[in-house]
C-alpha cells in the first residue's frame, strides 16, 4: 500500500480504532480486574502487575461468603432460562398456529395486544407484577421468574412467528387437509418443520432474556439459595468494601455462556429477529 493510499484511508482507520477502543475498554477492564490478585484490584493501572486465576478458583470452590452459593445460583439461572425458553415456544407456537393457520376469530386483536405488551417497557410492569406474584404465592420461587419471563418473551415470539408463518404457503395446509390430516398433524408435520429456524431464534431469544434479566430477579427472588446469578452479582454493591476482583471474575463467568450462545446463533438472531424489529 502506498503512503498516499494510507493517508487517504487514515480517517477510516481512526474510526475503526475508536470503535474498537470504545467497545473493548469496559470488557478489557472487566477481565483485567478479574485476573488481578484480590488486593491489587484497586491499583487503577492500565496493565496488571501480576495475573492470577485465584479469583476464579475462589468462586468455583465457593470459598468466599459472597460466592458460597455460586453453583446453586448457576443452576437457578440455567433452570429458569431453559424452562422459560421451552414454555415461550409452547405458548408462542400454540398462539401463532391458532392465529395464522387455524384462523381463530379475533386473531388480529390478539396479535395487536401482544404487540402492545411487547412495546411497553418491562421496567414499568415490574412493580405490579411483583405484587401479583406475591398474591399468587410465587415470590422467592423460580416459577415467579419463569412466568414473568414467559410473559415478557411471548408477545415478541408471537409477533415474529406471525411474520414468519405468513410466508408459509396456505396451500400446504390445504393439501394436508385434503389428505385428511387433523390440525395437530398439520402442526406436527407441516408447520413445525417449516418454522424450525424461527423457533430456534425465539428459543434463544427467550433463553438469553431470562438469563440476563436483572430487575425482575432482584425484585422477586430474595434468599441467596433462590437467586439467579444476575441479582447475586448485584448483592456485591451493598458492601462498601466489596471485593471487586472477585465480583468481576464472577461477572465474567456469568457473562460467558450467553455471549457464546449469542455468537453461535448470531445468524439466526440477526436474520430472524432484528430484521423483523424495524421495517420501513
Amino acid at each position, binding site marked *: 500500500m502506498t503512503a498516499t493510499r494510507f493517508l487517504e484511508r487514515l480517517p477510516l482507520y481512526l*474510526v475503526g480504532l475508536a470503535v474498537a477502543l470504545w*467497545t473493548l*475498554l*469496559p*470488557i478489557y*477492564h*472487566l477481565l483485567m480486574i478479574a485476573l488481578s490478585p484480590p488486593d491489587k484490584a484497586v*491499583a*487503577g*493501572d*492500565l496493565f496488571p502487575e501480576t495475573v492470577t486465576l485465584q479469583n476464579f478458583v475462589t468462586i468455583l470452590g465457593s470459598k468466599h461468603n459472597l460466592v458460597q452459593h455460586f453453583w446453586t445460583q448457576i443452576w437457578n439461572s440455567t433452570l429458569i432460562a431453559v424452562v422459560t425458553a421451552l414454555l415461550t415456544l*409452547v*405458548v*408462542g407456537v*400454540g398462539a401463532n398456529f*391458532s392465529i395464522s393457520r*387455524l384462523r381463530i376469530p379475533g386473531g388480529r386483536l*390478539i396479535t*395487536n*395486544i401482544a404487540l402492545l405488551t411487547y*412495546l411497553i*417497557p418491562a*421496567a*414499568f*410492569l*415490574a*412493580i*405490579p*407484577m411483583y*405484587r*401479583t406474584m406475591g398474591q*399468587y404465592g410465587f415470590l422467592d420461587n423460580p416459577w415467579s421468574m419463569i*412466568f*414473568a419471563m*414467559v*410473559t415478557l418473551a411471548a408477545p415478541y415470539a408471537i*409477533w415474529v412467528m*406471525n*411474520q414468519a408463518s405468513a410466508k408459509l404457503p396456505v396451500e400446504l395446509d390445504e393439501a394436508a387437509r385434503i389428505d385428511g390430516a387433523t*390440525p395437530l398433524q398439520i402442526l406436527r408435520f407441516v408447520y413445525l418443520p417449516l418454522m424450525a429456524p424461527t423457533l430456534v431464534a425465539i428459543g434463544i431469544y427467550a433463553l438469553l432474556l431470562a438469563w*440476563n434479566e*436483572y*430487575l425482575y430477579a432482584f*425484585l422477586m427472588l430474595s434468599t441467596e439459595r433462590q437467586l439467579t446469578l*444476575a441479582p447475586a452479582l448485584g448483592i456485591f*454493591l451493598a458492601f462498601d468494601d466489596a471485593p471487586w476482583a472477585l465480583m*468481576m471474575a464472577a*461477572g*465474567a463467568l*456469568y*457473562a460467558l455462556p450467553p*455471549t457464546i450462545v*449469542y*455468537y453461535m446463533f*448470531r445468524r439466526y438472531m440477526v436474520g430472524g429477529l432484528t*430484521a423483523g*424489529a*424495524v*421495517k*420501513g
Partner: protein
Amino acid sequence: MTAVAIDTAEITPRRRMSEERFWAIVLIAPYVLVFALFVVYPVLYGFWLGAGASSFRKLFQDPIFVTTLWNTAIFVLIAVNLKMVVALGLSAFFILEYRWVRWLSVIFIIAWAMPSIPTILSIRWMFNPEWGLINNLLFKWFQIEGPGWLTERHYGLGLAILVHIWKSLPFWTLILLAARLAIPKDLYESADVDGATRWQRFRFISWPAMRAVYMTSVLLSSIWTLGDFNSVYLLTGGGPNDSTQVLATLGVRYLRIDQIDVGMAAVICALPAILPMVFFLMKRLSRTDEQ
C-alpha cells in the same frame, strides 16, 4: 362402498370445522391465560393501587419527583438522539467491504451480546473517583484531579447516558446498516456520474431511503430508553441523594421503602409519554406486518 364414501364426504367438512375451532381455542388458551394472569390482572391491580389521590399527592410533594422528571427528559433526549446519529454514521462505516471492517463488526456487537450487569459494574469501577482507572490515568498522564464521577449529579447522569449508549449502539447500528444495505447501488453510481458530493449523496439518496426506518427506530428506542432501569440503577443507584433517579428507577425506589402505591403513581406518570409513541408504532408495525 360408494354410498359410505359419499356419506363421509358430506359429514367431514362440518365436523372438520368444529374440530379446527376446538384446537384453535385449545392452542391459544396458554397465551390468553398468561396474558390474563400476568398482564391484565397486575395492570388493573396496579392502577387500582396507584390511582388514589393520596398516592399522587405524596408523589408530587416529594422533591425527588421533579428532579426525576428532568433527569428522565435529559436522559431520553440526549441518549436517543446521540445514539441514533452515531449509529447512522457508523452504518456508513460498517457497510464498507473491507475484511477488517467485517471483523470489527463482529467485535462491535459484543456490547449488545453480553449481559449488561458485568459490563456496567466494570464501568462503574473504572469511574470510581478514588481507585478507578480513569481518575488514576488522568492524574498519571495529565496531573489532573479527576471529578467524583458517580457522586455528582451531572457526571452521574452523563455516565448513565454513556453506559446506555455503549450497550445499545451496536443494535441500532445493525438496524440502520440493514436499511442502508437495501438501497440499490446503481443510485450511487449514477450520482457519481453526475458528480455529486458526499453530502449530496447522503442528502438525496441515503437519507430519503433510510428516513422511515430512522424515525421508527427513534420512537422504539425512546420507549426502550424510558424503560432502561439497569444503566441508572447499577451505575449510580439513583444517587447521590436520589439526584439521578429516572422514571424507570423511581417506582422501584418507592417499592423498596414500602410505598408501592406511590411507586405505581410514578409508573402511571410515565404512561402519557409512552402510550402515544406505542400507538403510533403499533400503527406502523402492524402495517408492515400485513404486507
